[in-house]
């Protein structure tokens, strides 16, 4: 079988700006999202939700619904009490965890709380019947604002805990008392990071398919974590995991809100098991806003201590986290990530932080793009700007002065992290150069003289990515990969990651193709079916490529060893190398192609000593550390005095996400991240009234950016490889979001500083800015 044909031409694919392999199905409308699934005998479910934030359920009358032709069942909390609670994966000391039934039993705790489910053969019928269900409520006072909820006498969200406090958490490092004693200046500020709604364009959706004959469940769900979902849903329903299969079809965006296990996933499974029929539930947008987790929800009280020359000495933080009514999967964990990230890119080693986790009669908060790090970065970057203003230092200079220096890595932070690598001044210097910083400052002087409100804002950020070493995560922080070579020499990668727009069908194929010396089209990357893919953790926390990528890399190394052993056998020599898609005998120059080697492994006529048949390897990779990407964003704004409208004149983003596998995809991640950061900075805000009614409950009232609301982002990079993994990658999914909001707010505050403005909380709506300008004019 050995031949001496010329090796196939291969190019180095990693680092190339390649269009994506997954796109043809998406641009032709032939991809399958969960709502596109149609199973024989499938029924439709509609959920009745509470219109009140706090109320006792006196009675539920489903008679009319049950009499509606086509309705097959109605279930309420009384029917589903035995299904395990919606899980909370956090284990903070003293954490109060309310029992989270999948349907409310005697009481509702937030607007949107599921109360009953109606099942019918037709979804219009299910919806009609749901509207006919009469729930008699005894309405109670609600606690909707986290700070008010902490005041004595506030309504208790959970009557058993009248102080509404789910947990307190303290962390400190260094000597904060000494740092503050030595300080020449202390700057204090209350900074909020408002509640946001993740708003993936695809809402959640579930199809549950119970096969009575097999006593086995297949659950199709739009999720970021198929295997964790399988483990947890199986536990909730008392099923064995090998009788529970989760299939993740195409996922129309997640941003953290699908990194969760929801009541509806267990509820639809329960319904399907009861009825012995497949059942579909697709969340409406209005439901999405009251039933899928929200993000952020911080009130931070900060104090920063520094010397006159701008050297930062220490930081104090009191963080009030709005948790909502329940803990979803990671709810209490998110603010602890903020604490970890509080030192930012700076060298100071004295930090103290106290978190109070507060129950409110609102939708639970949980991971939303950045998950704790945007809040922390926004806070520290605002504080550094305020410190610079106080000391009359340039915001760029004060950052350069305080950065951790390249020779200090690995750097142990006051919050217990070990930063892997960094050249923190590089992206900042590059952003200043591209922006033309000195010229911008001169232009600003001229503009001010002319009465214009022009602002220049800088934010530098660090990010914790590649979640994470297992001891630092609630559920294992490794990732897995299987590489299979079929008898024809074509390669399939099964990844435990669960990409949903991040492009790993392409980037992982680039990695595999390069390692195996084959073409991009010779590799297929598959994910998201627990019956096919080995256990995995999933895609969140910018971990897809940073943890899933190395798992794949190591699986490929083992595969190459196996190929080499088959090569030695095929070529009759122990002096063989694997290169460019074939094994080559170093002595004779004879070759055996990948297809020949794989074919031989399956035909198994001549196995190498101690070698199994088949050409497949699996690797579970445990990362030794997080990775820490970083960057600098520079934003130039101009504010219309008459309307308060903010125009972004320039947006320069310089991001260092380590080694870049596909620049096209990385730019897309940055742009999308910036859009969500800008959404928070300027437009988006969850508004609850005092009764816990969600006033921003639709896309009419919740302003995610449209194309006309986005500036052109000048996206640039520096590349500092991470030493944590062999690919040198760090992760980029959340970078844009983290860098954006402080850069924008710093810019706007800079523009308004001549009016005496020192700080503004987000979102910076025209109304807010107009009022500030009016006050400034009066003052």
């Amino acid at each position, binding site marked *: 079988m050995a031949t001496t044909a010329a090796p196939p031409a291969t190019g180095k694919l990693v680092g190339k700006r390649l*269009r*994506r392999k*997954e*796109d*043809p*199905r*998406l*641009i*032709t*409308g*032939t*991809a*399958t*999202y969960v*709502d*596109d699934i*149609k199973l024989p005998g499938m029924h439709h479910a509609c959920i009745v939700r509470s219109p009140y934030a706090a109320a006792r359920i006196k009675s539920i009358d489903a008679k009319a619904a049950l009499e509606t032709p086509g309705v097959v069942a109605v279930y309420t909390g009384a029917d589903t009490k035995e299904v395990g609670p919606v899980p909370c994966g956090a284990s903070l000391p003293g954490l109060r965890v309310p029992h989270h039934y999948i349907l409310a039993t005697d009481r509702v705790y937030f607007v949107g709380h599921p109360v009953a489910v109606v099942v019918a053969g037709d979804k*219009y019928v299910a919806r009609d019947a749901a509207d006919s269900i009469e729930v008699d409520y005894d309405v109670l006072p609600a606690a909707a604002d986290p700070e008010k909820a902490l005041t004595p006498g506030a309504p208790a969200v959970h009557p058993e805990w009248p102080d509404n406090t789910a947990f307190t958490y303290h962390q400190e490092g260094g000597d904060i008392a000494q740092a503050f004693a030595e300080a020449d200046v202390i700057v204090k500020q209350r900074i909020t990071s408002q509640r946001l709604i993740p*708003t*993936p*364009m*695809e*809402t959640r959706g579930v199809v549950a398919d119970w096969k009575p004959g097999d006593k086995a469940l297949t659950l199709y769900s739009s999720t970021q974590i198929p295997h964790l979902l399988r483990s947890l849903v199986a536990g909730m329903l008392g099923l064995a995991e090998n009788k529970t299969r989760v299939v993740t079809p*195409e*996922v*129309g*965006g*997640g*941003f953290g809100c699908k990194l969760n296990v929801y009541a509806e996933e267990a509820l639809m499974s329960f319904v399907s098991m009861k009825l012995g029929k497949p059942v579909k539930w*697709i969340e*409406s*947008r*209005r439901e999405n806003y009251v039933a899928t987790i929200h993000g952020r929800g911080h009130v931070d009280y900060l104090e920063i201590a520094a010397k006159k020359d701008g050297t930062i000495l220490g930081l104090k933080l009191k963080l009030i986290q709005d948790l909502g009514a329940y803990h979803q999967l990671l709810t209490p964990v998110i603010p602890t990530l903020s604490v970890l990230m509080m030192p930012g890119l700076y060298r100071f080693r004295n930090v103290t932080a106290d978190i109070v986790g507060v129950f409110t009669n609102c939708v639970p908060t949980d991971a939303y793009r950045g998950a704790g790090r945007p809040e922390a970065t926004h806070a520290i970057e605002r504080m550094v700007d305020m410190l610079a203003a106080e000391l009359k230092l340039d915001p760029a200079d004060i950052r350069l002065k305080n950065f951790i220096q390249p020779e200090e890595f690995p750097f142990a932070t006051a919050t217990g992290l070990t930063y892997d690598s960094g050249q923190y001044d590089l992206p900042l210097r590059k952003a200043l150069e591209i922006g033309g910083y000195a010229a911008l400052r001169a232009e600003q002087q001229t503009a001010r003289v002319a009465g214009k409100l022009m602002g220049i804002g800088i934010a530098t950020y660090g990010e914790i990515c590649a979640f994470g070493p297992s001891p630092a995560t609630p559920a294992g922080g490794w990732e897995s990969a299987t590489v299979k070579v079929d008898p024809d020499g074509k390669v399939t990668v099964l990844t435990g990651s669960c990409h*949903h*727009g*991040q*492009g790993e069908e392409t980037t992982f194929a680039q990695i595999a193709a390069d390692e195996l010396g084959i073409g991009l089209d010779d590799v297929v990357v598959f994910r998201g079916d627990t019956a096919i893919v080995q256990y995995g953790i999933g895609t969140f926390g910018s971990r897809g490529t940073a943890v899933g990528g190395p798992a794949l890399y190591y699986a490929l190394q083992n595969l190459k060893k196996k190929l080499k052993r088959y090569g030695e056998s095929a070529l009759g020599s122990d002096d063989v190398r694997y290169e460019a898609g074939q094994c080559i005998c170093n002595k004779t120059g004879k070759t055996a192609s990948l297809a020949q080697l794989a074919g031989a492994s399956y035909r198994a006529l001549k196995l190498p000593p101690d070698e199994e048949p088949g050409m497949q390897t699996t690797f579970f990779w445990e990362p030794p550390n997080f990775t820490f990407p970083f960057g600098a964003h520079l934003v130039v704004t101009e504010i219309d005095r008459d309307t308060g409208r903010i125009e972004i004149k320039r947006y320069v983003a310089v991001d260092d996400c380590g080694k870049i596998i596909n620049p*096209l*995809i990385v*730019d*897309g991640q940055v*742009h*999308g*991240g*910036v*859009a*969500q950061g800008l959404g928070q900075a300027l437009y988006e805000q969850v508004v609850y009234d005092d009764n816990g009614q969600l006033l921003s409950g*639709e*896309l*009419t009232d919740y302003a*995610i*950016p*449209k*194309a*006309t609301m*986005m500036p*052109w*982002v000048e996206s640039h990079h520096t590349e500092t490889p991470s030493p944590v993994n062999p690919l040198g990658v760090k992760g980029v999914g959340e970078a*844009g979001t983290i860098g954006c909001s402080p850069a924008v707010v710093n810019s706007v505050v800079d523009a308004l500083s001549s009016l005496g403005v020192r700080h503004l909380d987000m979102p910076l709506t025209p109304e807010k800015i107009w009022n500030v300008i009016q006050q400034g004019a009066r003052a």
Partner: protein
Amino acid sequence: MKRTITVTINGETRSDEIEARLLLIHYLREVVGLTGAHIGCETSLCGACTVELDGKAVKSCTMFAVQANGRSLTTIEGLAKNGELHPVQEAFWNEHGLQCGFCTPGMIMASKQLLERNPNPSEGEIRHGIEGNLCRCTGYQHIVNAVRTAAERMK
């Protein structure tokens, strides 16, 4: 109440007996089996359901299927001809104008309409032309690039 409608979809004429209240998007997705157009909001704000009705882009989540009776529809599935992508589809692929892909069919239909009305749009005109379609992944920049390059290609 049932009604019979006759519609030409992507060049093929068909008749179906449907409920009068059936929304056009549900008719396309569930009766016809064309699931390319998506439902993102049910209130005509997001544009994921955009299709062409007699050559005009419409949001099919806020129309009844009976309103399409006797008319002609083009959906995302009808854009590629003989296995060849429409230039707008090709441009979205080349320029990475999509990530999760959920808004993409609607975004492509809106972009196609935009270019039919204005073959040489400025960046501002592109942004204005697609502002009825929401995308949460891309920040729109690569979509703007895609529409620009499609415009070049279609000249």
